[in-house]
């Protein structure tokens, strides 16, 4: 999964920072999104999808990679 954040569209509502604080923060002065990790680990994917869904200004975009098949031990 690759995440992009367009600060020009961002309105600083903070839903992303609440949903996935390991991935999204907000600039202290401007309030606009700060992307902490553009390729978050799979355990955060569900939270990131929720953040993208909640973004009121469509500032966040996702490109989901095809997951590699899991190897079984």
């Amino acid at each position, binding site marked *: 999964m690759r995440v992009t954040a367009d600060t020009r569209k961002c*309105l*600083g*509502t*903070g*839903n992303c*920072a*609440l949903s996935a604080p390991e991935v999204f923060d*907000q*600039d*202290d*002065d*401007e*309030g*606009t999104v700060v992307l902490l990790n553009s390729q978050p680990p799979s355990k955060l994917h569900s939270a990131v999808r929720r953040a993208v869904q909640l973004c*009121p*200004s469509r500032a966040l975009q996702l490109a989901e990679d095809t997951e590699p098949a899991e190897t079984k031990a």
Partner: protein
Amino acid sequence: MTTPAQTLPLYPWLDHDLHRPLDPQPEFARLRAEQPIVYVHMKNGHEAWLITRHEDARAALRDPRLSAYHDRPGFPQMGPVDRAVRPGTFAHMDPPDHARLRLILAPEFMPKRITALRPRIQEIVDELIAKMAAEGSPADVVEALAMPFPSRVICEMLGVPYADHSFFQGHTRVLMSQATSGKASDSSFETLLSYLDRLVTAKEQDQGRDILSRLADRVNHGVITHREAVGMAILLLFAGHETSANMLGLITFTLLQNPGQLSQLKADPALINRVIEESLRYLMIIHTGIVRIATDDVVIGGQLIRAGQGVILSLGSANRDENVFAHPDQFDIHRDASQHLTFAQGIHLCLGAHLARAELQIAIKTLFLSFKSLRLAVPPSEIPFKNDMFIYGVHSLPVAW
């Protein structure tokens, strides 16, 4: 037998069933089932499509072709008299003005800023609770806590001297009343406007670290005009006063009417977040809905809405949509209420949502943990609900302990 659209009573419908004051009017459930998007005539002469389902309201909120700009011809304003959009009222504007203004305030209301404010919010509640305890039972929760608490919080955040807050409360009460004539409303607005005008001017000369100082700084840098700064201050003042205050009264009443769940909260205070989220879903203070106008032809829920036609989104109805919330008319703190539309969605998503949650969580938890035996001091049927106001709530809530 269905009621044809043209025989629907004029909108908005303010009076609630006396026996079910916390529920939307029964008409909404019928509309969701039979006529989810229906054309209504309004008391002030406007016309609009009334949207009652969650899915349709959500789609409408996120559609950029539905404008919030109140000055568009035919915009279905809700009040008795149409008003021009005042400078700074970004809630009634579209991009790019909306973003230019909102972004100035965004960092003041973002989650981590509100988190840092929680200890101070707790202190303010504690002071008011201590005063309530000292004055003894019985008390009116509205006078003792619901009105002064959010008022004090927003006044501090803005940088308005607290000594002036009762002056504000009187005037905002007048402004929000449905029954007020146009004249009285203008006079109250002008009074508040001129006070804030003087305060913003003072901060343009001498800035602190509060919101009005931040606005004054932006005026000095030419990002916004002085008049816009004053307009934004007044917008925050209204939003900061009446919304949380009315929710506090309604939530207190609701919990007292649901003693089983209230006991659960008292036994496990960590439930407060769930209690508040379900309260945000179950209760509605903006009971007339919010309004938009189509700037292009739009299809919502299979209904064509033509460019220039108005739209009313009943968020209270959406929050009781049985397609989204099982047994929607039941207050249930254990359900997942997170899909509620109380703070709307899209670019006009409530700026104060994080603050509202913090205020409600802290105040309700502290109230019920401080007064473990809190009960109504009068029969529930005697509690006066605001059937005459744009913003719903209780006029008073007499309690004893």
